[in-house]
């Protein structure tokens, strides 16, 4: 069954109160769409890029009731991570995985989601891999110059933070002002510190969807910072965000024999 059919079926039976998918938008791009009636479900497609899991923690969406979500791998990972962090319950969401032929599979339980994910190879997109490798191959000074140039363009709009499914804090650290730990204005230090904090707050939690980089209105490849933090966690501790609905967060756990090379 295709997404539109499935959406209509779910809405008509009352199984879910809304189906989150995509619809065609400006310049042929896809944008998130909420179908709450069979009529709206007519326009749903599944091949957008934004991570729809960022909507399931919002008050307006929670108030709707159970929602179905068109779920590619990063969305599934995000939903599992949100369950692990107790932001949503298994019964609140119904992920709909869509295969190459456009056929929908309901993944009603965390276990089904985990099993489905295990079948999909996940790697960051080749263009990002290439840029990461290029950055890692630069000298430290070259990387500093690169990030200073990029971050000088940041306008602190928080499109990156707000698109991220894992940035769901009601009062983000940027919103707290007693004390103002990270500067709000978009001067050089404020930009550096904000992105540093965001990357660290996502280390071990980032599901590598790349939404933050896509969202940036000035085209800063900001997703590479969170990718770096996530890869660092995976390489050094073996833990991976969004692999399971049971929390396995690298920065709140430890092993007495964690190995490092730099502590004297």
């Amino acid at each position, binding site marked *: 069954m295709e997404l539109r059919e499935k959406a209509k079926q779910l809405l008509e039976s009352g199984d879910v109160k809304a189906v989150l998918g995509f619809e065609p938008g400006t310049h042929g791009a896809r944008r998130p769409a909420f179908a709450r009636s069979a009529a709206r479900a007519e326009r749903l497609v599944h091949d957008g890029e934004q991570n729809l899991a960022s909507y399931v923690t919002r008050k307006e969406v929670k108030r709707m009731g159970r929602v179905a979500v068109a779920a590619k791998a990063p969305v599934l990972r995000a939903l599992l991570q949100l369950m692990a962090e107790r932001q949503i319950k298994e019964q609140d969401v119904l992920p709909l995985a869509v295969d190459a032929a456009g056929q929908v599979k309901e993944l009603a339980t965390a276990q089904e989601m985990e099993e489905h994910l295990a079948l999909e190879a996940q790697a960051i997109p080749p263009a990002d891999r290439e840029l990461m490798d290029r950055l890692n191959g630069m000298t430290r000074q070259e990387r500093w110059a690169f990030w200073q140039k990029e971050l000088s363009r940041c306008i602190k709009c928080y499109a990156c933070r707000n698109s991220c499914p894992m940035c769901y804090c009601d009062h983000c650290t940027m919103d707290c002002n007693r004390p103002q730990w990270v500067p709000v204005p978009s001067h050089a230090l404020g930009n550096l510190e904000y992105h540093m904090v965001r990357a660290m707050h996502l280390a071990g939690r980032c599901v590598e969807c790349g939404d933050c980089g896509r969202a940036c209105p000035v085209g800063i490849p900001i997703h590479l910072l969170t990718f770096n933090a996530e890869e660092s966690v995976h390489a050094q501790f073996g833990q991976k965000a969004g692999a399971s609905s049971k929390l396995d967060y690298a920065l709140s756990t430890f092993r007495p024999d964690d190995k490092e090379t730099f502590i*004297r």
Partner: protein
Amino acid sequence: MTEPFEPKITAFVCNWCTYAGADLTGTSRIKYQSNVRVLRLPCTGRIDFMLLAKAFARGADGIIISGCHPNDCHYTSGNYHARRRWMIYRNLMDFMGIDTQRITFSWVSAAEGAKWAELVNEVTTSIRAMGPYAEYKELAAAGVE
């Protein structure tokens, strides 16, 4: 006549091990270079990674972070959490182009007065050779019209 550069080193140390160890250095009358400003925290586990970034922003040329050896933390596991945090943050800082050579992490126990002196002397000499962390100081002043 310009004065020769003397680095500012900020040290974040835990109360129970390294701070006590540094105290022992003093009571043992071991001399060491005086460029270090020691900030005492209850445990390395309490060290927010941003404290390091803010030390640089405030003009530190070098940073020392030091606490109890693994398995000896006064709060049992604070230093294990700190270690994990540093392993990630250090990579991130390096990826962003921050000079991680200017940051030294160590385990110094309450009995290691000599080690503290040796550590501070080595770090101070090495940072003096590197010069001031000008890039970061420029950053801290930049971007405001």
